[in-house]
């Protein structure tokens, strides 16, 4: 069944999560003085995992390929940077709702426009709106132009005057990001298995049929678009806290392309796949960057190869390992293939007449 995966997937994810959560315990033993650096990298990966996961709702679940998702990532970063007071930390209690509110509004406005388009048009318009914000920000004085904005103080998380979690501490921030990722994951897991998720699956499979049944598909698509945008903005806010600045590059379409790469590497439509993808992408990036200054070539080749031979990503390997495939044809695979034959052509007009 859709969105239900073999036990081993949950098992693998649980082990990996435990390993990462316990990093402060074993990090120093394995990496020595490098441990702090690795912790920073891990924190970033957690943030990017949240970002990639949010895109999966659009691309993997709903089947809408957005090439402008970085718009929300950057929006979250800039909202934090511009709303933070100069000489004191902001409070997370209003910063988080602010970031979510701003991104929801922007998502609604852009969503109304882009949802009107389909397929390749959707790709182009999301890309174009992403670039619009990119040019707007990188030519605006108040947003620091191409230099971006520095964030002097990370927001604080206090309750009744005492600090709940010291986000300036790399370890606490690491756990904060891990927590956010978990919350995001559980939310999406619940969402995809809910009725709402079922409607999204239906739209992905056969939007025309959904309309013929009487569903206002645009409404559902818009809501999913806004949800994905808000989650990406939260990831962007966390990224800005981690980097200490907001930069136009976070909005640019290369970032949108990279997050799509994470999705395909990890396996789209599975929610847990993109988490693996974000880690895999960052690890590859780290290795390539230390191999050659011309690392984009290696990354480009990697992605081409992944598209050609591993279109279902790492999650695909976990769900249906190659050594299993001969014995059991996964229902998923069959579903994919016959989907192409069943709903390849819209049925608005029969060819009979």
């Amino acid at each position: 069944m859709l969105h239900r995966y073999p036990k081993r997937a949950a098992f693998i994810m649980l082990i990996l999560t435990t390993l990462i959560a316990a990093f402060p315990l074993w990090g120093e033993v394995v990496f020595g003085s490098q441990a702090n650096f690795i912790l920073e990298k891990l924190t970033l990966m957690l943030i990017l995992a949240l970002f990639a996961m949010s895109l999966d709702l659009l691309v993997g679940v709903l089947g809408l390929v957005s090439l402008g998702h970085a718009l929300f990532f950057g929006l979250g970063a800039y909202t934090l940077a511009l709303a933070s007071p100069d000489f004191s930390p902001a409070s997370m209690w209003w910063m988080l709702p602010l970031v979510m509110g701003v991104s929801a509004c922007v998502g609604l406005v852009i969503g109304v426009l882009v949802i009107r388009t389909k397929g390749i048009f959707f790709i182009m318009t999301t890309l174009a709106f992403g670039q619009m914000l990119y040019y707007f920000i990188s030519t605006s004085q108040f947003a620091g132009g191409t230099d971006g904005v520095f964030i002097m103080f990370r927001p604080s998380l206090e309750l009744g005057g005492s600090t709940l979690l010291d986000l300036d501490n790399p370890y606490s921030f690491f756990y904060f990001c891990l927590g956010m990722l978990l919350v995001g994951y559980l939310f999406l897991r619940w969402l995809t298995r809910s009725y709402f998720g079922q409607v999204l699956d239906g739209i992905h499979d056969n939007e025309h049929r959904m309309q013929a049944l009487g569903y206002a598909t645009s409404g559902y698509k818009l809501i999913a678009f806004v949800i994905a945008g808000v989650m990406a903005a939260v990831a962007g806010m966390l990224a800005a806290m981690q980097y200490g600045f907001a930069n136009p590059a976070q909005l640019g379409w290369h970032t949108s392309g990279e997050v799509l790469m994470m999705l395909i590497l990890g396996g789209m439509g599975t929610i847990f796949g993109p988490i693996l993808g974000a880690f895999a992408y960052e690890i590859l990036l780290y290795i390539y960057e230390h191999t050659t200054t011309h690392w984009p070539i290696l990354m480009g080749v990697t992605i081409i190869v992944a598209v050609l031979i591993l279109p279902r990503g790492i999650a695909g390997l976990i769900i249906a390992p190659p050594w299993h495939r001969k014995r059991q044809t996964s229902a998923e695979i069959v579903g994919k293939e016959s989907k192409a034959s069943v709903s390849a052509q819209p049925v608005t007009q029969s060819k009979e007449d």
Partner: protein
Amino acid sequence: MRDEIVLATHGLTRRFGGLVAVNDVDFDVKANEIHAILGPNGAGKSTLINLLSGEIPPSEGQVLYRQQPIQGKSARQIARMGIGRSHQKTNIFPRLTCLQNCELAARIHMGGVFGSWRSRQTAQKVSERAQEVLDTCQLNHRAYTTAADMSYGEQRQLQIAMVLATAPSLMLLDEPMAGMGREETAQVTDLLASLTDRYTLVLIEHDMDSVFRLADRITVMVDGCVLESGPTEQIRTSEKVRDVYLGRHDEEAIA
């Protein structure tokens, strides 16, 4: 109630470029009848049903559903008025299970646009309704099978189940038995026959046996025009129909 006219068309015409697919068709459907549309390939049957369900707009004329014109309404709004339809090509959600397919169809008339977040009670009702139509269509043993994994005949049956699940007051079925084997055809014919007391049906079908067994009235179309329309007996014995249509299809008609 029996003679109440549910759906009527007046001078319905649809052109595609120079081709007139449906030409000045007057046609009506009474409550609780099965009204079959017969005609050779290219007679305009599918275009007619697309016009009735509002999926394509007419070039001229109008469609009245319960005395109200459906013109200008979207496919979605028409679906919500109670017109359910199935398509000639198998048109299901291949990655969802059989039950989920029916639940999606059932839910739409059990809650508002965002009924998907309604209470547990609604969920219960939706699920029951879906089970019920699966029972009716004898698909309950496949409830948890991914639709793509079912046989072709089962997928066609699922499509009818989905139309039923929307609890339409008028069902438009476009060749529900297309491509089915003899046994499956008989099964679906039985199924449709069992629906007559509760539903109004417009049926496009090539299988003559089934049509003559099921239909209360038959409209025969040729080249976009109505050749003859009337009770099944009248059509069965009509010379005109025999010449134009049945004559050509001797080998497959009336076995």
